[in-house]
């Protein structure tokens, strides 16, 4: 039992130290709250180094981007308003780029050890999410605002995390 207590205390210390890494890393990003929330929601942030934190962010972006891609697809096949047709088509491409090019690039760069290309991937996904939102300019509203915003913000946070590795 004593050993167990020591083990738990040790674990608590390790977790506490890494909690600090999460905080200090997130302080250098444009959205501290989002950064901390996203990282803490992933178990890997308890012991992970900065590369791991960046990978957590990539996964969060992929998750939101997948949701966006699904929503776009669903909307396109459910008789969307004429005003949305082209925006949805263009957005489909934007998210395709994020999911099939920018995020794989970021993962490869982070895992293989050349992080500057992860920064490129983040810049790419940030820009593409913003473009998708802007495709809806001139229509009543954007059905993807929340998701576009999420991908955009997460990408900007991700980019800031990656810069620590350069």
């Amino acid at each position, binding site marked *: 039992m004593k050993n*167990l*207590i020591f083990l*738990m*205390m040790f674990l*608590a210390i390790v*977790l506490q130290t890494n909690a600090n890494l999460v905080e200090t890393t997130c302080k250098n990003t444009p959205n501290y709250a989002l950064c901390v929330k996203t990282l803490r*929601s992933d*178990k890997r942030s308890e012991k992970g180094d900065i590369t791991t934190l960046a990978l957590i962010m990539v996964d*969060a972006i992929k*998750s*939101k981007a*997948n*949701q966006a*891609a*699904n929503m*776009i*697809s*669903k909307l396109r*096949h459910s008789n969307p308003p004429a*005003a949305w047709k082209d925006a949805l*088509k*263009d957005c*489909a*491409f934007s*998210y*395709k*780029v994020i*999911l*099939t*090019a920018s995020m*794989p*690039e970021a993962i*490869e*760069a982070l*895992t*293989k*050890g*050349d992080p500057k*290309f992860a920064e*490129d*991937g983040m810049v*790419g996904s940030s*820009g*593409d999410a*913003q*473009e998708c*939102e*802007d*495709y809806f*300019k*001139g*229509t*009543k*509203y*954007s059905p993807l*605002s*929340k998701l576009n915003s*999420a991908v*955009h913000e997460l990408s900007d946070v991700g980019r800031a995390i990656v810069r620590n590795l*350069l």
Partner: protein
Amino acid sequence: MQKNNMALSNSEETNNGVHYTQLPESDNNSGSPPTRYRQPKRMTFMILTGLVAFLLFFVAVRYGNYEETDNVNPGPVPPQETVCNMLGSNLMPLTTMTMLARGVAQGVSAKSRGHFLGARPFPWTKKMLAWQRTSFHFQPKKNWMNDPNGPLFYKGWYHLFYQYNPEAAVWGNIVWGHAVSRDLIHWQHLPVAMVADQWYDINGVWTGSATILPDGNLVMLYTGSTNESVQVQNLAYPADPSDPLLRKWVKYEGNPVLVPPPGIAKKDFRDPTTAWTTPEGKWRITIGSKVNKTGISLVYDTIDFKNFELLEGVLHGVPGTGMWECVDFYPVSKIAENGLDTSENGPAVKHVLKSSLDDDRNDYYALGTYDAVAGKWVPDNPIIDVGIGLRYDYGNFYASKSFYDQEKMRRVLWAWITESDSEAADICKGWASLQPIPRTIKFDKKTGSNIITWPVAEVENLRLNSKEFDNVKVKPGSVVPLEVGSATQLDIMAEFEVDPKVLERIDGSNATYDCKSGGGSTERGALGPFGLMVLTDSGLSEQTPIYFYIAKDATGNFNTHFCNDITRSSEATDVRKLIYGSTIPVLQGEKLTLRTLVDHSIVESFAQGGRAAITSRVYPTKAIYEDAKVYLFNNATDISVTATVKIWQMDSANIQSI
């Protein structure tokens, strides 16, 4: 890695009536176990339960999504034209858009629009994107390229290897691409030279350099990223030295020959240089790295390229510069016109140390003195040390590498010219990145404090017809068209004269100026800006000015700035638009001279015979094909400028595959 995503891309086009639960949009991935900081009492059990529950929830949320899309029927492959949905034909006509905008003004929620800047993203057309490909610059037929590797001249052929992604127009899956040329201008693509197929380079066959041995044989040292992502150095050599095309390469079975030494992080050890000889008759190389934020260059000696000994200390280091990538180290002659073999040394020699800074993606160099015995180098002027002073090029120019061309006795420079458009556009057009026209490097005998780079003479063989414009007077605030016909492939040589009496008469001021913050080509000063505008349409709605700006300070001293303004180069909103440039020494009696090579989306400019260079990437939407034109301009308020310009049309280089 790409395979999973292929399935995804098919499914999104044809996800037809597959019912699935729409996920809530709020990021409820925050299943963070609340049990983390509880009292130790029943902690084990609580934590375990919590973890299991969390894991299950996490997996359901993250992977449930994926499953659904993967199970969708693939359906028909989308036709080629719709693969890239940035094409103009998919857009609403302009009139409809305007009407909608007016009508829905009230309906637009301020909250949702608030934080995105900019107008509707630019609708690139196939035609606009196709124009961007160059005609006489080196680039692979498709996909991504970055660093030049192992450039060399061997048995009558120039060789260029390069970091290449055979699968996509973004970085990844890197292999060594390969091409050969007789003249550094007309290239033939060869099969890939090296792939990531050993444990010691399975995560990357990265940048390296060639060394030609006195007996004519050659060895290649390159960085591999191992199966554990450790950066190591490996030896490779031609499988068949009698093949002048060096098509096949063999990796030394004893690789890696170098691993990160103590005190160096395993991901901060890459890009070995060409070797040079030491006074003891050994070979010596240098490899960039960093310690905290100090960029450094480690030194190794070797006899056989298989066993190395680390020298104490470093060749040089500069605090605050971060990781040194693609270090290059070579001699230049203070007196001769020719380049020098990497092993040359002596009193008439200076050594250039160059580094690519990971932090800011620029290449920096400094002139200095090399102590061959100690294996150390010191800069002539520590104020403009490596990483904090001069650059090979003040624009887009990174990961450069030089080699000694023993055939023509010159030192030649390659580099990675990245795109400055969006990744999406690169995917759409199917390629990314260029090499510059290779440049010769020489010591600037006139200033003694910098080098000169200049496009290799062979590029002049592409010159077709020319047109000359002599002594054109360009008054303040004017633009003069230069009629040359087609203006997307040009070699321009220009000279500018300003009346020295006017220069004397003008009052100086204490206002500071630099290209970046100087307001660009439309910000008028007494003595500038003036120069050329390329890739400019007749309505001047898109312009790429390259110009001089003379600043006179309160004590009467002149500073000349040489700039390239990209801010007005394109109406597209998704391209990077900066102003590049630097001050440039102009000596007594010198005219201001400018050479610019225009090749579609790349513009390379050289001032004062190559004392400074600026490379930029330009993506006009209107000033393309027959609508691209050239102009002289003078936006200074107080001086007229007399310009003499010679412009050649440039032929294409017809890059082939063997």
